[in-house]
């Protein structure tokens, strides 16, 4: 295996949790809900997937458990913002905070340990050997392939499925949707729950696919990167994929450079700087195409 294929292999691995979470964020965004709680939902997914796998002995039941628990957790955001009309940013920040405390607390009370739970008996997601795909694409966990499928499904769903059209309409003009008998709340709930499910899968991939363990705060900012990816990818599934890919490759390349004498601090910072520059370029391009914006939004 050449160094280059290993690089892309590990980039793909690193970006999968980000991609799954960002996909969830994108769907929320399209439905008009700003979801800044991806990090917390993902962390709940990590913990629940590990707990599920541990207690049932099946990694797949763990994945299912992670997805469901994370979706249940997402209900807090859904009820808070859609039904009670709370502020999405406040609730999202609270969810991130709550997830750290909650999983740390449960780690101690459920597993009786602190910091990290790992055990040889913990069932993880194995790699699937799809030799015909070549060294970069083969050998990942099923969730990695599922994430690619999810991008395709989400792209087709949003662009071509009637429900996707309705969801986008809800995000763009909720009262217009309501007058045609489409309940914005229903679609927004569905979007937030879907993002919960996807974040749960992201967490499961991180905790049972990338590694096989749970450790406190193991998402380590990946959910925030997902938020950025939603913005950079303009909430389009393929855009989000490209944004996550950019971040994953920047990080993997950074790792390689570390061995070649670049200080660790520089390689740590690299993916964020690259992402920021990409944001500059994409907004600059958008700006150039658009006419000057009014300082006060015109209404006519």
């Amino acid at each position, binding site marked *: 295996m050449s160094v280059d294929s290993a690089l892309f292999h590990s980039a793909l691995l690193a970006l999968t949790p980000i991609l799954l979470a960002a996909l969830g964020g994108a769907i929320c965004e399209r439905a*008009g*809900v*700003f979801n800044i709680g991806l990090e917390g939902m993902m962390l709940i997914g990590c913990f629940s997937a590990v707990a599920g796998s541990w207690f049932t002995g099946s990694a797949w039941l763990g994945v299912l458990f992670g997805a469901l628990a994370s979706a249940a957790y997402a209900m*807090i955001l859904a*009820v*808070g*913002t*859609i039904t*009670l*009309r*709370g*502020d*999405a*940013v*406040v*609730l999202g*920040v*609270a*969810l991130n*905070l*709550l997830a*750290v*405390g*909650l999983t*740390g*607390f449960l780690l*101690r*009370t459920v597993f009786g340990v*602190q910091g990290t739970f790992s055990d040889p008996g913990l069932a993880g997601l194995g790699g699937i050997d799809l030799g015909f795909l070549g060294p970069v694409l083969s050998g990942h966990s099923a969730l990695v392939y599922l994430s690619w499928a999810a991008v395709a499904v989400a792209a087709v769903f949003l662009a071509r499925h009637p429900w996707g059209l309705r969801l986008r309409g809800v995000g763009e*003009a*909720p*009262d217009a949707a309501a007058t045609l008998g489409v309940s*914005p709340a229903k679609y927004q709930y569905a979007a937030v729950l879907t993002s919960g499910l996807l974040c749960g899968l992201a967490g499961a991939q991180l905790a049972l696919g990338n590694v096989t363990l749970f450790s406190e705060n193991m998402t380590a*900012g990946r959910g*925030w990167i997902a*938020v*950025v990816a939603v*913005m950079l990818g303009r909430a389009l599934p393929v855009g989000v994929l490209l944004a996550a890919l950019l971040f994953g490759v920047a990080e993997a390349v950074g790792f390689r450079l570390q061995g070649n004498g670049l*200080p660790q*601090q*520089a390689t*740590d*910072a690299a993916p*964020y*700087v690259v*992402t*920021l520059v990409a*944001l*500059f370029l994409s*907004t*600059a391009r*958008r*700006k150039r195409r658009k006419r000057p914006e009014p*300082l*006060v*939004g015109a209404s006519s």
Partner: protein
Amino acid sequence: MAVDSATGARSVAGRALRSPALHSVVAAVLVGALFLVGTGADPIGAYGSVLSGALGPDGIGSTLTTGTSIIGLAVALAIPMRAGLLNLGGDGQLVLGGIAAAATGLYVPLPAPLAVLAALLAGMLAGAAYAALAAVCQNQFGVPLLVSSLLLGYPAMSFASYLARFPLKEEGSSLPQTRRLPEGVELPAFGSSTVTVGLVLVVLAAAAFLFADARTATGYEIRMTGLNPRFAAYAGIEGPRLTLRLMGLSGAVAGLVGAIGVLSFPYRFIDGSLTAAGHTWTGLTAALLASAAPLGTALAALFFAALDVGGLAMERATAVPRELTQVLQAVVIVFLAARLQLTWRRARKPGPAADEPVRTEGDL
């Protein structure tokens, strides 16, 4: 909203009792008790040790020390939030302030008291300049402040870490830390406690914020911008300039907190130690909780500092993990975000999406 100072003590008490914040705290405490009972712990004992650990004679000093940074950061993040701007890069500004103060304290050829002043100023300047950069990203490049400040935070931390580990490192130490500041280049402490003059500086910053918010034309313009940016722009308040200035101020206060951290025991910059406790997030939460109203923000920050310190004391005294207090913090906010809107909905026409920032009436 402008705090009405003319209200009598009775109505203050009445308002506090009716305040959604208080209700949320009570609800969170009840949820926490359920948790405790569920895990077989004694809620009364646990909460008792939180209280005595945070506010008892042995704990109050720690609460005020922790409070210094949490209040400082809460105020720092509340300043732009008052105008509806979310600064998510507090960690980076904090750390840059710390490392700038350390470098100044180590190298500035001034007598000790002046060196302290120089270090504080350097910290504020570094934080301000870096936060302003995030504002420039929004104003010039159209990258939303929330994202630009968040993304800029990481390289700042890496840069400070690099300085602490290479150019400024203490030779022979196995910790990634700078040398200790010269003798006397430190903030005086109160008696034998860990509470330093830093607390006074932070309280002064909070007081200045309170005064500016409630009594000055600029504070008024900031509030109006937060409540309706289009209204502010229509009235001639220049959003981008305000963003730049508020972010500069915000970064300056965050940098001040970093400088205070470095000028307090152990009088050096230790990589990661300013951010490890997560005070930036706690401060942000406090500001969000109080809708960035100055007094409420400071009180919420002090409340969280007490929870933080009390949680550790509870862990020492009982078998209950300190994460419980972190859960309490988050539950308070979840309840408040939801409850606030319940009181709020009556007053306004239902809109399609919940995209306006939450505002409370007055302070906590």
